[in-house]
């Protein structure tokens, strides 16, 4: 590394020259840094900060023709309307239930899988498994939805296997029956995400102090006891962090996934806030209502994120900055 040696040599020079360089203005010459940040600042201003101002339409009777400045002010009417809407309780229940199950399974499955993977000493095998299980995370729900719609159809491969191998007589309507739909949604989400979820645990496993295991070994602890008394307690802080931060997603049940799997048959059990808002708000042109629901969702999410951070800070000594 020529640069490194040059750096070490340069360090001596620098120590003497620090004052001079400051007076030359390099360290204080920050305009190139401002220029570097300029594109990102402008883009975020246009596409995040300006739309934030547009949230005002949640308190208006927004008509595209009148625009933001001439639409009628209606205060909290849309929020009232939202809670009076006959389906809304069911939709919120669906959302929280599906999202809650996803959060719980999304913590447990990757955690257990990481523990199992950690017991593998044969690296090529380990790497192959990792490559395979990370893959679904990178595929769009459009394609996964297309595949699952085919596989889970009444005459699809899953029903064929259940029929031929397990003697299930009637085909199961996985995507046509509300309860099965919820099951499929949670299971397929775990299937898509669990591999990716192991990364953080594997990183933490690599950081466990080996001397703890040696000490346990000397004391005659079996591998099971080592896992129970060394590995799991060492990973608990990171599990708490992941879990508490996931709290903010309690109203995010996965728009991409559900939109690509659901159909009118399962609206009663599978319709979530985001899909509901898309249909009633966007497609039917009730823009103010859609925005009001969005604000409600963000508020709940924000409160839960704050609570999550506080909990993470308290129990796992975690800070984001």
């Amino acid at each position: 590394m020529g640069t490194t040696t040059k750096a070490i040599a340069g360090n001596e020079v620098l120590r003497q020259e620090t004052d001079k360089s400051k007076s030359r203005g390099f360290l204080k010459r920050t305009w190139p840094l401002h220029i570097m940040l300029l594109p990102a600042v402008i883009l975020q201003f246009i596409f995040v900060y300006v739309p934030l101002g547009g949230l005002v339409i949640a308190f208006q009777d927004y008509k595209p023709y009148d625009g933001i400045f001439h639409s009628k002010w209606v205060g909290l009417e849309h929020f009232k309307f939202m809670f009076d809407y006959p389906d809304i309780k069911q939709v919120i229940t669906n959302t929280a239930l599906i999202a809650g199950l996803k959060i719980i399974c999304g913590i447990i499955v990757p955690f257990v899988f990481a523990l199992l993977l950690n017991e593998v000493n044969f690296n090529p095998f380990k790497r192959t498994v990792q490559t395979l299980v990370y893959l679904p995370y990178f595929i769009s729900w459009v394609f996964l939805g297309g595949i699952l719609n085919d596989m889970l159809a009444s005459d699809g491969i899953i029903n064929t296997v259940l029929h031929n191998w397990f003697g299930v007589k009637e085909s199961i309507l996985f995507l046509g029956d509300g309860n099965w739909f919820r099951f499929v949604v949670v299971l397929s989400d775990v299937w898509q995400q669990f591999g990716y979820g192991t990364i953080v645990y594997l990183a933490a496993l690599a950081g466990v102090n080996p001397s703890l295991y040696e000490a346990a070994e000397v004391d005659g602890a079996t591998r099971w006891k080592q896992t129970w008394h060394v590995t799991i307690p060492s990973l608990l802080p990171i599990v708490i962090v992941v879990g508490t931060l996931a709290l903010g997603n309690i109203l995010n049940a996965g728009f991409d996934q559900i939109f690509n799997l659901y159909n009118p048959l399962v609206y009663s059990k599978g319709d979530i806030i985001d899909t509901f808002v898309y249909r009633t708000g966007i497609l039917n042109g009730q823009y103010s209502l859609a925005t009001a629901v969005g604000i409600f969702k963000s508020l709940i999410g924000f409160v839960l994120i704050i609570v999550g951070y506080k909990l993470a800070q308290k129990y796992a000594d975690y800070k984001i900055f």
Partner: protein
Amino acid sequence: MYQKTFGYRVFSVFNYLILALAGLLCIIPIIHILAISFSASAPANAHLVGMWPVDFNTESYTKTMNNPNFLRAFWISIGRTALGASITLAVITLGGYALSKDTTVFKARSRYAWYFVFTMWFSGGIVPLYIVIRNLHMMNTIWALVLPGSVAVFNMILLMNFFRATPKELEEAAFIDGAGHFSILFRVYLPLAMPAIATMSLFTIVGNWNAWFDALLYINDYRNYPLATFLQTIIVQQDFSKLNPDVNELKNISQRTVKAAQIFIGMLPVLVVYPFLQRFFVKGIVLGAVKE
């Protein structure tokens, strides 16, 4: 040594089996769809295809590749991905570098940092963004797809952390040699940050290729749809109304084998890019996430 005990050996055998099964489970759906796409349409429609093609043929791919609507959408996706990923990588590299400077050197740093972190937590949601894009006359243009999400703040922070972990001496040496911020970034930092850049490339390329909902909102003409949106419309929603297909085309695109071929081609770029960049991304994520 616990590895030598009988109990642990039994566990090991089961463990390898379970892990192998889990790995297979993650690609079986992809293999199944691939098998259907290479099968003749009669056995496919009779649901006789499992993990291996029946009456191997490539007819469904010929049909797909001769479908001008599919091809157009495919090229739009390629263009969108190239443009979107380039913009994102450029913006977050520049931003990440500037934010990696110490507050003592770059006083405005923390103000900028808050400006960006704020956008990670708060957003106006779909409708206000839609109004902004319409007022900017970006509807039906590729800019409506690539610009709004282009500043990936989280990735920018990961890059910032990566740059921070680079030894300061290198920067100082380059400075002594008369380099400015731009040449320090491009000649010193970037070559060292290749694992992180590869990770970010994977995420932005895959993210752009997979995105479908934005075009559903901002693109009114199906002829400007990227592939994911196009397939979402005709395969998942099974909405052919926008397409106005003739009877022949309708028969073709609703065929099970052709659907499978379209889905597989839709996934293909991700399947191709993924193995090359995968070995970097674990490293990239972990390194970027570690704080000093």
